């Protein structure tokens, strides 16, 4: 924690000549200030946004740094992939570093499909202005006539606003502009490129998983996300997105048999992943095609090895699609696990019946409720009619069907 402290004192020392009073705002120097993060209200954990604001709210404000979020994929992997993309897009906008691993699609393709951020109030951080100097004097501004005292103050707000805000909104109908995308630092792991020969060893871990873990560890060490490593001048968050772990393309037979040969491969990997996350400034989102995994007990232990666990249940292809109760939604969202971080009790979501829907531009999670029944056959009397029909019941109803009661 040495570096943030010193940097804070340095900036305040620089500001001193401009200050007219000796009073200064007391700064909480214990917290590391990284763009796109904020401390949790409940337990002070450093949180990052998942990119979906409603999901942040469900998870108690956001994802705590150092934790793993497990997403159980929906049947056709359309919505789980969307959440993963939201998570990565939020990383791009907050200028976090990304690590994307996939076996099915090339990680480059996933990155190219990221949704476009809606940045209406803040300036988009262009790669041209990469070296961000908050103390740079504003040269293009006209000299202030009235508030001349603030003329030489560093133009902090506008520079930081683009990245320091917590959680952004995205337009899924558009993809992110290439210049924003390219500004982000991005590490990729595409399994076919890393696996030269098929596995012959009998270790509990599969070759694919150990290669992934090794690659991730390398990135964490090399790029200075390790908490044990000496602090570099600025710290950043590594966002790890692992797509469709446990599917057959990772070489895992978890989803094929009732009694898989590599039964402990994924759980061993997740154990290692969690250890890596805990000791570094990184946060991971893992999607698993749980609908293919037959063994419920195994799925339970996979869930236990992650901190947060949510499951998506899409209505596509199920009889619920035709049910009028669900006609406003695209699927149900189940929160299976919330993290217990440095405490015994955890922040539980206040509502258990949750549903998600994909509007034209936005993915959102809502409380599941019955749609208002506006059809003709409803016997309920609306409030307006009640007011008019206090004196005589018969005269109040003016619908097509004349009913006295």
């Amino acid at each position, binding site marked *: 924690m040495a570096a943030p402290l010193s940097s804070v004192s340095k900036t305040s020392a620089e500001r001193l000549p401009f200050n007219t009073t000796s009073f200064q705002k007391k700064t909480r120097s214990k917290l590391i200030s990284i763009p796109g993060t904020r401390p949790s209200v409940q337990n002070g954990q450093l949180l990052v946004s998942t990119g979906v604001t409603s999901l942040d709210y469900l998870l108690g404000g956001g994802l705590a740094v150092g934790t793993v979020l497990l997403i159980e994929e929906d049947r056709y992997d359309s919505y789980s992939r969307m959440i993963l993309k939201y998570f990565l897009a939020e990383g791009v906008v907050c200028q976090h570093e990304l690590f994307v691993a996939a076996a099915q699609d090339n990680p480059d393709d996933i990155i190219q499909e990221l949704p476009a951020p809606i940045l209406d109030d803040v300036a988009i951080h262009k790669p041209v202005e990469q070296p961000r100097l908050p103390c740079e004097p504003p040269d293009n501004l006209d000299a202030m006539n009235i508030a001349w005292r603030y003329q030489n103050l560093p133009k902090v707000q506008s520079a930081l606003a683009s990245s320091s805000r917590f959680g952004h909104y995205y337009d899924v109908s558009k993809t992110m502009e290439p210049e924003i995308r390219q500004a982000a630092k991005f590490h990729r792991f595409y399994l076919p490129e890393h696996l030269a020969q098929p596995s012959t060893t009998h270790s509990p871990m599969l070759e694919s998983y150990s290669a992934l873990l090794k690659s991730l560890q390398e990135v964490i060490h090399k790029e200075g996300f390790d908490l044990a490593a000496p602090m570099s001048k600025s710290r950043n968050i590594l966002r790890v997105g692992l797509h469709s772990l446990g599917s057959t393309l990772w070489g895992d037979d978890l989803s094929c048999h009732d009694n898989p040969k590599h039964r402990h491969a994924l759980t061993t990997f997740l154990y290692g992943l969690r250890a890596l996350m805990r000791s570094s400034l990184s946060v991971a989102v893992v999607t698993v095609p749980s609908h*293919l995994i037959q063994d419920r007990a195994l799925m339970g232990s996979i869930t236990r090895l992650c901190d947060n666990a949510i499951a998506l249940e899409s209505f596509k292809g199920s009889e619920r699609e035709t049910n009028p109760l669900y006609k406003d939604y695209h699927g149900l969202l189940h929160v299976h696990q919330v993290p217990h971080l440095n405490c015994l009790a955890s922040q539980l979501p206040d509502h258990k019946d949750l549903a998600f829907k994909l509007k034209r531009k936005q993915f959102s999670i809502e409380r599941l409720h019955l749609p208002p029944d506006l059809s003709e056959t409803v016997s309920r009397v609306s409030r307006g009619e009640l007011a008019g029909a206090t*004196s005589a019941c018969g005269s109040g109803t003016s619908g097509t069907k004349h009913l006295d009661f």
Partner: protein
Amino acid sequence: MLTELLQGIEAGGFLVIQDSCSYSGRHLLKSFINAALNRAEVVHVLGFDVSEEELKDGLRTSDTQRLHIHSAYTDPLGWTERPAFTVHQFRLEDLTDLVKQTPHPKPATLIIDSLSWILRHVTPPAVCKTLHQLRKGGAVRAVIGLLHADMHQRGTVGSVCHLATSLIAVAPGAKGDEAVAKITKRSKFRKVMQDEEIFSLNGDFTVTIHSKRSNPEQNWNDAEEEQVDPTAELTFNLRLSDSELEAKKKLMLPFVFSKEKLATLSQPAFLK
């Protein structure tokens, strides 16, 4: 949607025809072979389930230079000296070589009859990996495979179908030669479309589509119309006769404020 698929699946597509013992999907597979041959495509068939003669029966024999059958029916495991094709050759390198043996300018369509045989002898992760590589590799344009769903565990079928871009699940229909196809198709932008069609196959393996049942909303509307009238058998009257209405209007409800009440209330006895 079945006719759309027969007209050609997109490059890099992987179609699975999923059948069971109650209805064989091989005839539908043959119509896909015929349709590909009609489009002047090169077709490679990996035959495990039936012999070459049986497979060729009914196909357009005039296009033999574009139809290549690699039969593994007689010797699937390579026990004799010179097997034509064995199940162990189901790897990307071997399959690419096989397709490249007969050079054509256009990439070929690979037909697998059936995936079930391969899945019995090769581990499912390896099969899925090969299928995925074939899709991405570019050696073949599209892959069409037959899968007997009742021969495998549910997870294996699910894993293979998870890779597919299109899935046709066939089942016997209500009438004699009719069959029901449940089609699931993923578009390029990850939109999933589903459809259910009743079809029958003619002698020359052309497909006749009888009816569609695509719109789930339509079903729902039908169900709503069938709803019984809730006012049909009531034990009380919903409507009042004129005399009853008159009587009801005359009735003074206790807590309704009226002129009489006002008069009573404004009497000096009350005001005191």
